[in-house]
């Protein structure tokens, strides 16, 4: 199964061990799923952890993500972003562009701004799709 992992899934998975997002990160590590991200996801996660715990943790997260995910460079997204410009919020542009460029079925996120996109799925619903036991939280 190939998915796009939004920073919300990654961050909730690290903040809450007992969550569907944490289960998804475990699936990633065990290579049960293949995850695409882009440079903006890395920037978002690093920005979050830099503010939360400092630069060392931000760096550790970058290593973790580059080790386990396929990272799409911004330069690959220029044409897709041009097509989508004005149709979606600026902060989500790179993510939808990545999903469309690579024809990824699922964008796993806990972010209502993605509602309306067919690819959007919450961590809980994704875990259900994988036919695994879900946690009570939506994230």
């Amino acid at each position, binding site marked *: 199964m190939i998915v796009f992992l939004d920073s919300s899934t990654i961050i909730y998975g690290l903040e809450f061990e007992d969550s569907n997002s944490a289960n998804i990160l475990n699936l990633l*590590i065990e290579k049960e799923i293949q995850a695409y991200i882009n440079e903006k996801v890395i920037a978002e996660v690093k920005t979050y952890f830099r503010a939360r715990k400092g630069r060392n943790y931000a760096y550790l997260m970058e*290593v973790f993500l580059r080790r386990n995910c396929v990272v799409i460079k911004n330069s690959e997204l220029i044409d897709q972003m041009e097509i989508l410009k004005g149709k979606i919020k600026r902060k989500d542009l790179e993510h939808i562009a990545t999903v469309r460029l690579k024809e990824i079925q699922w964008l796993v996120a806990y972010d209502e701004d993605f509602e309306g996109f067919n690819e959007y799925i919450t961590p809980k619903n994704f875990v259900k799709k994988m036919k695994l036991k879900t946690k009570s939280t939506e994230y």
Partner: protein
Amino acid sequence: MSTLTIKFHGVQDEILQALIDSGIAESKSEAIRMALLKFGLDLGIFESKEIMAIIQSKMQKEPLTPEQVGKRIKKAKHDSISR
């Protein structure tokens, strides 16, 4: 916790200064901490599962509510928009 006093000369000192000048690290101490982390990771001392466990346990020491995490994620997303 370990406290060390180390003297750096020549090329090592130049590297430390370059790491600060380039904005990668804010201080020489931070540069050394990051370099040590990279060295350990490059050698494969930590597997991905261990990195995840380290971060999760650190987060749980200062837990946030899901709402607080959500707000911080929104801010990080906005702050990461390329200009």
